[in-house]
C-alpha cells in the first residue's frame, strides 16, 4: 500500500537496525511517548531487533488509559439517563468505571453509540432533536481540534441538544512531571507525531533545553520509529539535547495554526487529573465559559463524583515508564483484556494491552543480525 509499505520495508529496517547497533556504544533508556507507537513496536517486534542496551520504556500517551475513573463514571451516569445518547470513540466502551462500563450500560438499555468523529455525534443531534446527545471528547491535543470544531459548529447552528463530556489532556506537562521525578531513568524521548502535527514542537524545545534531554518527533510506522531511535541515539552519543523532527511528512515546527486557533476559541488550559498519575497543573483543556451551555458535566450535573483507583493496579508506574507491564503481579492472570484491572489493559493504545496482545512465546526469540 502506497505511503505505508515504504515504512515497513524489512531490508530498510535491517539497515537502520545495523546503524543503531553501530552507533550505540553505551546503554540508553528511551521513551516513546505515544501509545500508538508502543503498539507498533510490539506488533512488529521492533524491541527484539534492537541491541539489548537500547531500552525502550513506554510513555503516558494513551488517552483512554489516562482518563480518570470519575470521568468514566460520569459517562456511565449520563448514558444511563433515559433521554441521553452518549456517543464515543470505540475503545472507551470497555473501560471499567467503578461499577460499570459503557458496554454494560448499552446492554441494560442505555443509548450508547460508537463514532469515528465528533461530527457524527453532531449529525445524530441534528437528526434526533428529542435526544440529548453527548460526545465523549477524549484525547490529547490530536483530537482536540475536531472536538472544538464540533462544539463551535453546534453553537453556530444553535443546536440545543448537543454537549460534550471533555477529558482532554496535554503531553508536555506530563513529560515535565516525569523529568522532575528523582526516579526518572529516561534519557531521550520519541515525541508524539500526531500531537505535534497540531501543536508543532516548540514546547519540546523548551523541555529539551530546561532538562538537557533530546527529543525526536516520531511517526508511527516501524521505519519511523527505528529512524527516530537512531536519531535519538546519535544525539545522546554526541552529547546533544535538541529537538529533531523525523516525522517531516506530517509535522512542521509551527504545527497547524488554523486548527489551534479554532481549538482555543472553544477550549482553555486547565488543571486535569490523570488516571494513575494524579492531578497535573495546566495539563488539559476545558470548555471556555462562553461555551458552558455545551458542557455535559454542567448540563447533567455530574460534577461532584470522586473515586479512588484500585490498589492492585500498577498503571501509575507503567504510565510513567517506571515499570514494564510484565512487572505487575496481576499481568496476564488477574488482569487480561477480558478482565482488565486498569485502563492500560483495555485500550488498544495501552502499554499493558500491547504487551498482552503482541506478547512473545518462550523460545521464539528473533535471531537478528549480530
Amino acid at each position: 500500500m502506497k505511503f505505508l509499505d515504504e515504512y515497513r520495508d524489512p531490508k530498510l529496517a535491517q539497515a537502520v537496525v545495523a546503524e543503531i547497533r553501530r552507533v550505540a556504544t553505551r546503554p540508553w533508556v528511551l521513551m516513546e511517548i505515544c501509545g500508538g507507537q508502543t503498539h507498533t513496536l510490539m506488533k512488529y517486534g521492533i524491541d527484539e531487533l534492537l541491541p539489548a542496551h537500547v531500552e525502550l520504556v513506554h510513555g503516558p500517551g494513551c488517552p483512554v488509559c489516562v482518563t480518570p475513573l470519575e470521568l468514566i463514571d460520569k459517562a456511565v451516569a449520563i448514558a444511563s439517563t433515559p433521554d441521553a445518547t452518549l456517543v464515543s470513540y470505540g475503545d472507551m466502551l470497555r473501560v471499567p468505571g467503578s461499577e460499570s462500563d459503557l458496554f454494560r450500560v448499552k446492554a441494560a438499555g442505555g443509548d450508547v453509540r460508537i463514532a469515528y468523529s465528533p461530527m457524527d455525534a453532531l449529525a445524530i443531534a441534528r437528526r434526533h432533536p428529542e435526544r440529548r446527545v453527548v460526545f465523549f471528547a477524549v484525547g490529547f491535543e490530536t483530537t482536540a481540534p475536531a472536538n472544538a470544531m464540533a462544539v463551535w459548529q453546534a453553537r453556530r447552528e444553535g443546536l440545543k441538544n448537543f454537549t460534550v463530556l471533555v477529558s482532554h489532556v496535554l503531553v508536555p506537562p506530563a513529560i515535565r512531571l516525569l523529568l522532575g521525578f528523582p526516579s526518572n531513568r529516561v534519557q531521550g524521548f520519541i515525541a508524539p507525531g500526531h500531537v505535534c502535527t497540531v501543536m508543532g514542537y516548540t514546547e519540546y524545545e523548551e523541555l529539551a533545553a530546561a532538562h538537557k534531554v533530546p527529543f525526536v518527533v516520531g511517526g508511527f510506522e516501524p521505519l519511523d520509529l527505528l529512524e527516530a531511535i537512531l536519531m535519538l541515539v546519535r544525539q545522546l552519543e554526541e552529547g546533544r539535547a535538541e529537538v529533531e523532527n523525523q516525522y517531516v511528512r506530517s509535522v512542521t515546527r509551527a504545527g497547524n495554526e488554523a486548527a489551534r486557533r479554532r481549538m482555543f476559541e472553544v477550549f482553555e488550559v486547565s488543571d486535569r487529573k490523570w488516571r494513575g498519575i494524579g492531578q497535573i497543573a495546566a495539563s488539559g483543556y476545558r470548555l471556555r465559559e462562553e461555551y458552558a451551555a455545551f458542557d455535559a458535566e454542567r448540563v447533567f450535573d455530574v460534577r461532584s463524583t470522586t473515586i479512588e483507583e484500585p490498589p492492585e493496579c500498577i498503571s501509575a508506574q507503567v504510565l510513567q515508564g517506571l515499570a514494564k507491564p510484565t512487572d505487575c503481579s496481576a499481568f496476564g492472570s488477574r488482569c487480561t483484556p477480558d478482565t482488565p484491572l486498569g485502563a492500560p489493559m483495555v485500550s488498544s493504545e495501552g502499554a499493558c494491552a500491547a504487551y498482552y496482545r503482541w506478547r512473545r512465546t518462550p523460545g521464539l526469540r528473533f535471531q537478528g543480525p549480530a
Partner: protein
Amino acid sequence: MTSCPTPLETKDRVLLGHGSGGRLSAELLRDVFLKVFRSPVLGRLDDQAVLEIGGERIAFTTDSFVVQPLFFRGGDIGSLAVHGTVNDLAMGGAEPLYLAAAFILEEGLSTDILARVADSMARAASAAGIEIVTGDTKVVEKGKGDGLFINTTGIGRVPPGVNLSAANIRPGDRVLLSGFIGDHGIAILSERESIGFETAIASDSAALHTLVRDLLRAAPGIRVMRDPTRGGVSSTTNELAAKAGLGIELMETAIPVREEVRGACELLGFDPLYVANEGKLIAIVAPEDADAGLAAMRAHPLGAGAAIIGSVTEAHPGIVTLETLFGTSRVVDMLSGDQLPRIC
C-alpha cells in the same frame, strides 16, 4: 460511590461481545449450553454434527443471520443465509442436500424487501444445487426485531472415507487458506451509517461445497477444514490449535489481503486477521498433500487466491504465532469481543 470492584464480571448480562465468535462466545457456550445439553456430538463443537443414520453419515447444522444492512455489496441476508449453512455442511466434507428456513419478521417490514430476500435465497440455493424443503414464519411487534432475522438448518451426506476432525492434525501439517481475507467484514462495515468511508469491496459470500469437493479429491490428506467467519482467521486457527493440542505458526507475508481491505483496516485500527469472511476456508493438510491441495484450490474460481499460510508445530501447544515481515514472532490471540475502532 464505593471504590473499585474491578474486574467487572462478564456474566450478569449478555453483551454484544458474546456474539463476536471470540472468547466471550466460547465462555457463553461452555457456561450456559454445554453444561445442560449433555451431548457428546455437541461437545465436539464442530461446525456441524455428523450422525450415523441407517448406515449413512448425515451432516446436520443450523445458523442464524442477523446482518445489518440487509442488502450489501456482494450479497444480502438471503444469499448469506444459504451460503453460511451450506458452508457449515461443506466444512465437514458433506454434500449439502436440503435446507430448512425460518424467518422472524418485524411488524412493518416492507413485503417488497421480503420478496427480494426470498428471491435471492432461491437463486443462491439453486446455484448451490440445494433445495429449501421446509420452513417457518413468525412476526414480532414493531421495535422487537431488526427488520428481518433468518435461521437456516441444513443436512448433507458425508461420503464414505471422508473423516475430518481437528484430532487428525499432526505436527508438520500445512495451513491452506482459499483466498483474500477480510472482504465480508469490511464490506458490511463500510455500509453502516456511522462509518464515514466508501469502498468498492464486495462481500465474498459464496457456497464453498464444490471447492471442498475438488479439494478432497486432489488432497486426501486433508485433516480438517473450517470457514473463518466471525472472529476471522485468528479465531479459527486458535480454535484448531486448542482442539488439536498443537501450535500453529502463520507467516504474515503469505496471508492474502486486498489493498482496499488493508487500507480500510489501517484507517479503523483493525487487524485483517480478525475480520469476518463468508466465502473462504482454511484447510489443515498433510505436508505431502499440501501442493496438490493448493493447486486444486487455485484451479477453482473460489480458490484462485489460495495460499499456504503456515504450518503446525509441537512447540507452544494451543498457541498461534505469526512470523512478522521483519522476521520477528508474536502471538496471534483470540479477541475477547469485537474489534473496537480506536481514538487516534
